[in-house]
């Protein structure tokens, strides 16, 4: 377990440390409070939209954007933490921000985690893993727009 936390920490530290970043914002990556995401103004838009979205009452950012097994959770956070910090510091990311394919799959897994029962039929005969027919195609706005 320790090595995992370490790995996560290292990710953020590399991301932040070398790009001069304040501790408060870096730490936000380990919290599940949505407000912690808005420490970066660049996350303001999804945050505002989330407040108006259907899932505001059911799911926070991390419920959808972070894997829910312990190992994956911290690895993902380290990786995303690194990229987001780097992006924020260097301002070198594509705008509008687009979810990365890997993170989109992750979100999809989270949809199914909560909605396993109702989607049983439609995920069992085809392949839910096939990204070409994913939940986001029809429901991309449930979290925010």
């Amino acid at each position, binding site marked *: 377990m320790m090595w995992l936390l370490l790995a996560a920490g290292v990710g953020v530290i590399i991301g932040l440390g070398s790009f001069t970043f304040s501790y408060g914002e870096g730490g936000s990556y380990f919290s599940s409070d949505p407000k912690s995401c808005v420490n970066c103004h660049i996350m303001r838009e999804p945050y505002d939209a989330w407040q108006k979205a259907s899932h505001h009452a059911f799911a926070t950012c991390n419920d959808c954007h972070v894997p829910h097994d312990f190992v994956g959770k911290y690895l993902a956070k380290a990786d995303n933490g690194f990229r987001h910090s780097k992006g924020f510091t260097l301002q070198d990311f594509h705008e509008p921000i687009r979810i990365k394919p890997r993170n989109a799959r992750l979100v999809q897994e989270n949809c199914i985690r909560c909605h396993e029962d109702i989607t049983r*039929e439609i995920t069992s005969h*085809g392949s839910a*893993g096939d990204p*070409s027919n994913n939940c986001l195609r*029809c429901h991309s706005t449930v979290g925010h727009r």
Partner: protein
Amino acid sequence: NIVERKQEGQSHYFEVVGLSEDVVDPEIWGRNFPRQYDGYRRTVDNERSHHGGSEALPPSKLEADPRLRRIYAGYAFSVDYREKRGHAFMLHDQEQTERVKQFKQPGACLHCHASVLPAFRFAGNGDIMRGFEKVCAMPYAEAHDLVDAKGERLVKHPVACIDCHDPKSMQLRVTRPGFLNGIQALVEGDADLPHLPSVVQWRKDRKSGRVKEGDHYEPNVRATRQEMRSFVCGQCHVEYYFKGTGKLLTYPWQKGLKADQIEEYYSQVGFTDWVHAETQGQLLKAQHPEFEMWNQGIHARSGVACADCHMPYQRVGAVKVSDHQVRSPMLQVNRACQTCHRFDEEEIKARVEIIQNRTRDLAGRAEDALIQMLDAIGEARKNGAAAEGLKPAHDLHRRAQWRVDFVLSENSSGFHSPQEAARLLAEAIDFARRAQIEAIRAAGNKK
């Protein structure tokens, strides 16, 4: 990926009966999948669809628009041509059309109007492709009445579960020889198909040598799930012709799916559907090119499949299933459109109406042009214009007829690709009017 799919396919439903390639009757499949069967059966339900009527035949297109009788003069379609309706009727409506009753038709017709694999398998001694070829060549009645060794009728059901699903995994699959041959010709050609990722990939693999000379593009193995959600419909909702004396059902896709590309193909192979009774022009007939027109549209480019709109998910009790009552999406705009388009139902219907009205207005204009062209050619012939002098008019007639028909016989009234439909009608008008001018000229020259 296939393996992954297989594994997932095995669980999650209560297997009441065992299914296999030999079980065609949807009622039996329905014991395992009652929700889907329920929808499937409701395709007999006409009440909520456009045109009403039940056991009787659906409304005649020829009565609704008498210009069509002249436009198709000399062809079976000028005798009987009706509206489509639900899948449950497909076999019945084919048996009852005057086009079958009054005219000689081949077994090829059954390919898209029945669950026909057992007949193909039987006729081919297990080889479906060979059986397909044999059945195509039979007279319609002979094919229709085929019986197996036990004397059981082989052609009994309209499209059935087994035509779109693998009985073991329940995965989508395509089974129709016409489609398999057609898509093969298409992927081997060089028409641009950026919205079909598995086609793009196959072509790459062929270039790199991973696909060997002679290897086929296998949709059931290569296509993404999302592609399959359109391909199953593309088995039947397509333009076709009967090739040669063997009446081999063929999809003319070698040069691409656009009307112009298909026309080019027909010209190259020298195909003609019929000779027009008034003008003796050698013409083509287009049939239900839904798949082709969808391919030109913005929805296809955005990865939106036929099933997304025509079989939208529907909540039944605690689960959501694909609505197997395949029908017009306008009957359930909320499910079919509103997950993607956050406008209210009235607004969405209004948008479809604007598109369809523009298409219908132009189609009417194009038909008028055709009719006036027919008059002019008739006049020229009466005045003794030479066949030679009328050749330009005949060529233009063929091109105009093809484009008008491509839009008229496409069943979405332009919705599947609004600007493309309008473009085709604009060209049709141009060709028809030019044919008229050529005829007037020919008449002048011979007077």
